[in-house]
C-alpha cells in the first residue's frame, strides 16, 4: 500500500497533461481540422506558464498564461489553414517545430530555476476516507479541472446545439455551409480551444508534473495526445480512459526500470507507442464505429466560395 498510492498518484499526474491536450485536439478534429502542432503549443504553454509564475509568483496567472500562449500560437495556425488554405499537415508540423524553437528561446534564462509546484487543494472530510481520500481528494486545481473538462465536453458535444453544429461542420462542411453555418468561424474557435488546452497541458508540465523548465520538456506527449484522440474514436470519456492508460504505462515502465526488470529501457519506453498502434489496428476493423465517430472532413480545406 505504501508503494501503491504514490504510484497511482503519479499515474494521475502523468495522465492529466495528456488529457488536456487530447481533449483540445479532439474538439479541433471534430470540427474537421487536424492540428499536428500540439507538441509546439504545449511547449509554449509550458515556458510561458513557468515564466509567469517565476516573475509574478501567481499560479493563477501562470495557468492563464499557459492557456493564452497555446491559444495564441494556434491563431497563427488558424490564419494559415483557414484564411490561406494552407495544408493542415504541413502547417501543423511547422507549428510544432516553431513551438520547440520559440519556447527554447524564451526559456533560455529559466533553465535550472525551481518552483514548489501548484498548491494541492485538499478537500476536507472526503480526504479522511482511507486509501481513496489521499488518492482522489488531494490534487491541484488542474487535475480536478481536467475531469470537469471531460464531463463538460462530453455534455457539450452530445447534448447541446453548438456541439451538434461542431460535429456537423466536421462531418460535411459543404452541407453545413449550404444550410448556412459559418464553417470557418466555427473551425477558428475549435482551433483556438484546442490550442488553449494544449497550452494548459504544457503549463501543467512545468507547474505541477515537474515544476521547472527544461528545453523540449514535453518529450513527445503532444504526439501521444494526437494518437489518443484516434485511440478514443473521438469520444471524450474514452479519451479519459486512454489518457490514464497511457499515463499508467509510462509510469509503470519507469517503475519496471527502477526494479531492474531485465527488459531494455528503450523497449519499455516504446510501450505506449506500441499500444497506440495495436489499438489503432483494432479499432479500424470496425468500419461502422469509425464512420459514426470520425469527422469525415478532417484535414480537408474548405473553400467557402463554391
Amino acid at each position, binding site marked *: 500500500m505504501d508503494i501503491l498510492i504514490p504510484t497511482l498518484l503519479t499515474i494521475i499526474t502523468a495522465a492529466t497533461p495528456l488529457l488536456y491536450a487530447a481533449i483540445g485536439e479532439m474538439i479541433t478534429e471534430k470540427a474537421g481540422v487536424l492540428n499536428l502542432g500540439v507538441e509546439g503549443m504545449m511547449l509554449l504553454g509550458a515556458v510561458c506558464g513557468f515564466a509567469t509564475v517565476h516573475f509574478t509568483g501567481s499560479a493563477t496567472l501562470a495557468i492563464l498564461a499557459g492557456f493564452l500562449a497555446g491559444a495564441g500560437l494556434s491563431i497563427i495556425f488558424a490564419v494559415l489553414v483557414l484564411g490561406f488554405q494552407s495544408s493542415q499537415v504541413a502547417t501543423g508540423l511547422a507549428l510544432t517545430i516553431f513551438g520547440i524553437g520559440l519556447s527554447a528561446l524564451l526559456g533560455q534564462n529559466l533553465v535550472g530555476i525551481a518552483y514548489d509546484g501548484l498548491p494541492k487543494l485538499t478537500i476536507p472530510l472526503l480526504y479522511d476516507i482511507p486509501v481513496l481520500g489521499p488518492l482522489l481528494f488531494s490534487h491541484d486545481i488542474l487535475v480536478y479541472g481536467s475531469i470537469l473538462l471531460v464531463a463538460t465536453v462530453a455534455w457539450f458535444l452530445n447534448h447541446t446545439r453548438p456541439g451538434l453544429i461542431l460535429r456537423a461542420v466536421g462531418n*460535411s462542411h459543404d452541407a453545413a455551409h449550404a444550410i448556412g453555418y459559418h464553417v470557418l468561424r466555427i473551425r477558428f474557435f475549435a482551433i483556438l480551444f484546442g490550442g488553449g488546452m494544449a497550452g494548459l497541458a504544457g503549463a501543467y508540465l512545468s507547474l505541477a508534473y515537474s515544476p521547472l523548465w527544461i528545453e523540449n520538456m514535453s518529450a513527445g506527449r503532444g504526439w501521444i495526445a494526437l494518437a489518443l484522440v484516434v485511440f478514443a474514436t473521438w469520444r471524450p470519456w474514452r479519451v479519459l480512459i486512454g489518457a490514464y492508460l497511457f499515463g499508467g504505462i509510462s509510469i509503470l515502465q519507469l517503475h519496471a526500470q527502477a526494479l531492474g526488470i531485465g527488459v531494455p529501457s528503450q523497449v519499455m519506453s516504446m510501450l505506449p507507442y506500441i499500444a497506440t498502434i495495436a489499438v489503432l489496428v483494432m479499432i479500424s476493423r470496425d468500419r461502422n464505429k469509425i464512420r459514426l465517430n470520425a469527422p469525415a472532413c478532417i484535414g480537408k480545406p474548405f473553400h467557402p466560395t463554391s
Partner: protein
Amino acid sequence: MSPDFSLNSVNSDLLVSFTIDHRRLITLQGEFLIQLDGMTKSFPGVLANDRVNLTIAPGEIHALLGENGAGKSTLVKMIYGILRPDQGQIKWKGNTVEITSPAFARNLGIAMVFQHFSLFDSLTVFENIVLGMDASTDTSKLRSEIEDISTRYGLPLDANRHVYTLSVGERQRIEIIRCLLQHPSLLVMDEPTSVLTPQEVEKLFETLNRLADEGLSILYISHKLDEIKALCHHATILRGGKVVDSVQVETETPSSLAAKMMGESLATSNLEQQGEPGEIRLQVSGLNVLAVDEFSIPLKNITFEVRSGEILGVAGVAGNGQDELLKALSGETLTADSSALQIDGKPCGGKGPNARRMLGMSTIPEERLGHGAVPGMSLVDNGLLTAFQRLEFLTGGFIVRGASELFAQEVVRRFNVKSHGIEAVASSLSGGNLQKFIVGREICQKPELLVVSQPTWGVDAGAAQTIHEALRQLASEGTAVVVISQDLDELMKISDRISAICAGELSQTYPAAGVTIEQIGLMMAGAHSVDEITEKVDAI
C-alpha cells in the same frame, strides 16, 4: 383481368381529377411573392445566368425547366443565398431584398430541397433535422412535429437512424420534412421526384397541391415534362443561361415544352422490341446474401436469367435491396455458393469485379461520386479505371496514355458530356453530365453483360433518351442488360422483361408488353406474381 384492377383505376382517376383542378390561371396583378429581375451570374469561362427574369405568385407551383447546365441550379442558389448575383435584384413581397445567406433566405420564408442532399452521414435523422432549424426551435416538440408531417405527407422515417444507413429515397424524405418544418412561403424543390416511386410521386404531388392550396408557392425544378404538365401552373424555360420562354403550362404539351427546352424538335423514340433473345448470359439461381449490418437488406433466393440481346428491368422502391443486388452482381459482395451466379455458364459467385469484367460484365452503380467515379480524378483516369483490362490500356504494366485519352474523348463526344475537357476532375461535372460519362464509359467498352442501376437519375430528357437508345442499341448488338431503376416509365420504355424487388426478394419476371404500371406497382409492394396480385385485389 381488367375488373380486378378497379381499385387502382379509381386511384388514378383521382390523380387526374386533382391535377386538372389545379391547372388554373393565376391572375394576380403585381402581387408577386418573389420577383427576379435581370439576374446575372458568371463563372470563369461560363455565363451561367444571363439577365434572368422570373416571378412567382402566392400559391403558384412554378416550374423551372432546362437541360443540364442550363443555369437552373445557379439561379436557385442565388434565390437561396448560397451564391451572390453579379447583377440583378430580387423583390420579396414587393420589397427589394439582398439575400446574403441561406439563413437570411430561411428567415424570409424560403426553404429548399437540394438535388445533392445537404445531409450529415454520421448524424441521426433527428440531428440532421435539428441542424436545419433555427436555434430557437423547441427540440422537445420537434419529434412529434416530425412524426406528424411524416405521417400526414406519407414520408415514413425513423428519426433515430443514422443517415449513412439510408437509401437515396429515404434521404430525400429528410430534406423534404426539414423544409416543411420551417413553414415556408416559398418551397424550392430541385428535381425532387428523381428517386421516388410512382406511388411516392403521387403522394408528393398530393402534398404539394395541398400546400399550394394553403398559399405556399413552389418553385419546381425538373426535366420530367409530364410531371410538370401534371403539377405546375406556370413554367419558365432556361437554355444556355437565358430565359427562352415563360408559359402557362395548361396551354403546352410535353413535346412543346421539350422543344423549347432543347431548342430543337425532340426526336421521337424509335425503341422497338428486338427479335428473339439469344443464349443465357447471366444465370442467377438461389442467390442469398446476408445483411452486412442491421440496416442493409438481405437478399433472399434471387433467381433470374438474362439472355443475350434482351433488357431485364428490375423495379422497386428505394431501399428494398437494389444496392445489395447490384453489389452481388458486380462482385463487390461475393457469394458463398459460387454457382449461384453464372456468367456464360461459368460459376462466378466467388469472383471479384475485375474477374467478372474480364468475362465481359460491366456494372454502373447508383452513386456516382465515390462509387461510380473517383471524385478527385480526371475523366481520363476515371475512364482508365474500369476500361483498362478490356480495352488493353496497359502495356507491360505501364499506362498507354494516348489510348485512354482517345477513349475518354470518344465517351465525351458520343454522350455529349459537358465539361472543361477530358482532364476535368469528375467532381467538377454536374450530376447529369457525370452520369452521362459513367454510363457512356461502360457502354463504349461494348460489354457482353451490363448491369446498371438508375441509369438516368438526375439526367435531362435529351440525355435520358441518348442513354436509353444506347442501352437499346447495345442489346440489339447482343449484350444482355439488367436495368435496376425506380423510374417505372423508363423501365416500361426500354425493358423486354420486367420484375420487381421488394424486401430483398425478386418477383417473377414478365414480358414488359404484358404488364401494366399498376401491376408492377403491386409487385414492388411485395406481390410475387400476377396471380398473387389478383388475389390481393380480390381480397380488397
